[in-house]
């Protein structure tokens, strides 16, 4: 169905310049230009959650650049385009630098400010001829071919719009596209998988500005007369209206919204004076009332209403049909298939109490084996036996091994206050490879605070945190992720509207290198296939293979936590921080999870988990740390901790 639609659109783009009467050629030229700007806004507002009330400024900067160069300096339009885009991009980049840390509505307000500022500047700089405008702008030409004919120009505009739409679609369907989606309300999660959210949001902002710049360039050579008015606040607001009316979630919302707004405005300007006999009075009023009604009734835009009638999407074509050969041919035997005969009250004696032998002993576990020195290892992969060297994954989704017993994490005297409340007080403990450490304690004991300190979400208080032997307290979350620490969150942080596979694939962000350009030009397919294969593996490993295309928000909460774990594993971490992973899981699922964690431990990972389910903790953990009121009150093997009187008092409150 989608292909047919695209085909119709292409035919329309080709046919329109030929068939349409002259006035409509002009009208749809404006629609096309507006579409370009709106596409940028869809990326900016719909996908990455920023808002700009100043896009018209970028249209204006490019329009004036090309006008001054082609009209007064006689330069060819290509030069005008280049200078316009460079100028627009630079100014957008600078503005993005300034507004990096501002939250949603502050950014919008700054954009209002710069919109008005630049508009005034356009009107007052003598070189720009103020409100009288500049006319006689030469038409587009390539060599001797001239686009003076508006029909040719219309074709140029729409072909450009189509190309920009295609590269935007490519961008969204890529590693970078996934990362961009985290900017809209899930930045913390994005940082935790290694995404530089600040830099990325600035990049999206610049891209949106560049789209507007392209539109400005085309506008100047299409209308061949410019003055400041099309670049004022009202125009910027119009572009936003287009995106909101059309639907900001999908790229198709841009042409839909642009068409509706431009055509509606034009029709109102034509009909309302005829109806009321008073020109100039009612059009803006009626149009704005319509917009308000739409904003109130159809807040997510009209596109979702229209696509409701389209048949449902087929499973994601992005999944490679033949995933590369995976060593994990036999997923670990899942307890789901063979429910244990004994009730779970007493920890099964079969589980070893001390950490099993780690590197080199995987064959004993019967799981998929990672033979050493396989050809195709990443350059720079260093085996962990060197003691202190950084183990790097061979690219197959299995963490390679840290030396057994090597210290992954250590906290010494760590304290953190929040305006008088001591969330953590002089906490000392460490986590080694091949062990599972549980962090337990009553609510409010400071467990998640510790997680946030370790993973860089909170700036450090006092004390020392060491990650893999290096000081780690001052690192940003994404630096922590790059070192090999993955975490999940107490309150699940997913992209609920996106599929499970896509959410999991976020964890592969650091494994990929394809940036914006390769994504837009679709040169990243090979890498993307690898990344998705990795994600798929982890998904299957965690029992999510049957829900890969389901929107993650549709899963029950417990399963969503499992998605988070799968995402964390995609990072190939050596230290895994799990915040209440078993909450909301049913018994068989908990057992599956426990088995997985044991396997990970055997493979050399260190796991620090916060849990409230005592059964789960006691039969799984090698060591238990108990916290209360920010202080560590007990540490040791599960049995020892369970019978510790201080622990009993903390949980039960002073029973003798």
């Amino acid at each position, binding site marked *: 169905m989608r292909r047919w639609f695209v085909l119709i659109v292409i035919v329309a783009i080709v046919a329109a310049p030929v068939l349409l009467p002259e006035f409509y050629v002009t009208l749809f030229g404006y629609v096309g230009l507006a579409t370009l700007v709106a596409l940028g806004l869809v990326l900016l507002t719909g996908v990455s959650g920023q808002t700009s009330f100043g896009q018209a400024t970028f249209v204006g900067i490019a329009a004036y650049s090309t006008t001054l160069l082609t009209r007064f300096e006689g330069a060819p339009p290509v030069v005008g385009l280049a200078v316009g885009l460079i100028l627009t991009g630079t100014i957008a980049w600078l503005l993005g630098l300034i507004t990096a840390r501002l939250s949603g*509505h502050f950014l919008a307000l700054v954009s209002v400010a710069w919109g008005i500022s630049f508009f005034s500047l356009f009107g007052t700089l003598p070189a720009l001829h103020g409100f009288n405008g500049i006319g006689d702008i030469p038409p587009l030409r390539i060599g001797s071919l001239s686009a003076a004919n508006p029909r040719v120009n219309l074709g140029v505009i729409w072909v450009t719009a189509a190309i920009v739409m295609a590269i935007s679609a490519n961008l969204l369907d890529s590693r970078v596209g996934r990362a961009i989606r985290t900017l809209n309300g899930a*930045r913390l999660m994005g940082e935790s998988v290694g995404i530089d959210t600040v830099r990325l949001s600035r990049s999206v902002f610049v891209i949106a500005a560049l789209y507007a710049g392209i539109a400005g360039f085309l506008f100047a050579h299409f209308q061949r007369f410019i003055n400041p008015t099309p670049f004022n606040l009202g125009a910027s607001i119009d572009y936003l209206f287009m995106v909101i009316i059309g639907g900001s979630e999908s790229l198709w919302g841009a042409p839909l919204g642009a068409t509706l707004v431009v055509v509606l405005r034009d029709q109102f300007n034509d009909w309302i004076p005829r109806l009321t006999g008073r020109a100039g009075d009612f059009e803006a009023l009626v149009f704005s009332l319509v917009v308000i009604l739409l904003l109130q009734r159809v*807040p997510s835009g009209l596109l979702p209403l229209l696509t409701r009638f389209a048949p449902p999407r087929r499973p994601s074509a992005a999944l490679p049909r033949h995933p590369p050969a995976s060593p994990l041919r036999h997923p670990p035997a899942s307890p789901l298939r063979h429910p244990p005969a004994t009730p779970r009250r007493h920890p099964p004696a079969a589980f070893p109490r001390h950490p099993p032998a780690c590197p080199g002993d995987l064959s004993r576990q019967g799981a998929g084996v990672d033979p050493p020195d396989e050809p195709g290892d990443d350059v720079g992969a260093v085996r962990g036996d060197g003691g202190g060297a950084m183990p790097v994954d061979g690219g197959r989704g299995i963490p390679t091994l840290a030396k057994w017993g090597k210290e992954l994490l250590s906290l010494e005297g760590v304290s953190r206050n929040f305006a008088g409340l001591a969330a953590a007080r002089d906490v000392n403990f460490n986590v080694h490879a091949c062990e599972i450490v549980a962090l337990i304690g009553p609510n409010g004991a400071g467990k998640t605070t510790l997680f946030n300190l370790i993973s860089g979400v909170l700036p450090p208080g006092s004390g020392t945190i060491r990650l893999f032997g290096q000081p780690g307290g001052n690192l940003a979350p994404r630096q922590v992720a790059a070192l090999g620490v993955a975490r999940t969150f107490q309150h699940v942080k997913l992209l609920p509207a996106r599929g499970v596979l896509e959410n999991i694939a976020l964890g592969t962000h650091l494994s990929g290198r394809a940036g914006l350009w390769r994504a837009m030009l679709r040169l990243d397919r090979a890498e993307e296939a690898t990344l998705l294969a990795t994600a798929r593996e982890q998904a299957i490993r965690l029992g999510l293979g049957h829900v890969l295309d389901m929107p993650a928000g549709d899963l029950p909460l417990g399963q969503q936590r499992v998605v988070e774990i799968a995402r964390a594993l995609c990072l190939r971490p050596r230290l895994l921080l799990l915040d209440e992973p078993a909450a909301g899981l049913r018994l068989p699922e908990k057992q599956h999870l426990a088995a997985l964690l044991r396997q990970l431990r055997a493979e050399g990972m260190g796991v620090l988990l916060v849990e409230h389910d005592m059964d789960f903790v006691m039969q799984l953990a090698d060591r238990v740390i108990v916290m209360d009121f920010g202080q560590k009150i007990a540490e040791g093997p599960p049995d020892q901790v369970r019978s510790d009187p201080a622990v009993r008092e903390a949980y039960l409150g002073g029973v003798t």
Partner: protein
Amino acid sequence: MDLFVFLALLQDGITTGAIYLLLAIGLLIVFSVTRVIFVPQGDLLAFGTLTVASLQSGHLPGTLWLLDGVAAVALVVSLCRGGRAAVMGVLAWGVFPLVLTLAAVLLAPYQVPAISILLALAIVTPMGPLIWRFAFRPVAGASVLALLILAMALHFVLIGAGLVFFGPEEASAPALTEASFDLGTLNVSDQSLAVLLCCAALVSGLRWFFGATIHGKALRATASDRIGARLVGIDAAATGALAFGLASFIAALAGVLIGAVTPLSYDAGFDIGLKGFVAAIMGGLVSYPMAAAGAVLVGVLESLVSFWASAYREVIVFTLLIPVLVWLSLRSGSPEDRA
């Protein structure tokens, strides 16, 4: 530039700064209670000026009919709801507009400034709650951004209405006083003083209102924690209406005051509202004292810049906003999720 000129500019700047402060206060009240960035407040300011000008020239202003029309709709809606809402509706949207219309019809021909001013205030103030009721309350739970976009759309509706009712020409409000006196070499107009006095009176009145009355405290409670306020029984819809009512009263008053100094046309209010909003932003949209400082700064800066480079006035004032916001952003921490 000599001292005389500087003092004259300063006087001008402080007067306009007082107006910006009034608008900033209105913006802050509305934002803290409803999370709406009430951009169209400037348009209500222009309505205030134009309404009083119309009354002063003996004509009935179009805003009166607008009020009557929308109030009628509100009346019907509240009657349909029945019960207490119907009673309140009859009083607020039935009796009040009726009395007001009669008063306007009877008294406008006398063209007494004081009466015109009071009538104008009475006509424009109810527009706030009506805007809340029909524009924002239906989507009160939307994000700040969505509400801001709605506010922008509303701005166009209001200036469209302004053009229809008042035409494109500028009009002046009657001055409260034509007198002036000399302070050394500086000629201080009494109108400027009146503006400052009204501003001070309003600020202290609001402080009393928020501190001592139950409704004021309810507003503060809602501003502080919306859900908590609702949990203790504070009516969110009513506090929203009250906040908007305060803002539109402030806007109408500001329009009456500034309209005597500067003639305004139907679209001139938006710019003034924007500068009040710059002042509010300087207070981070939360702090009244900072907004006051920002308002005076904007007013004086605008006045001084007019002297040196009037063409670039808008550019400078709005570009000023950007370093302020940079400074604000440096105070905040790492990127937070926006749920």
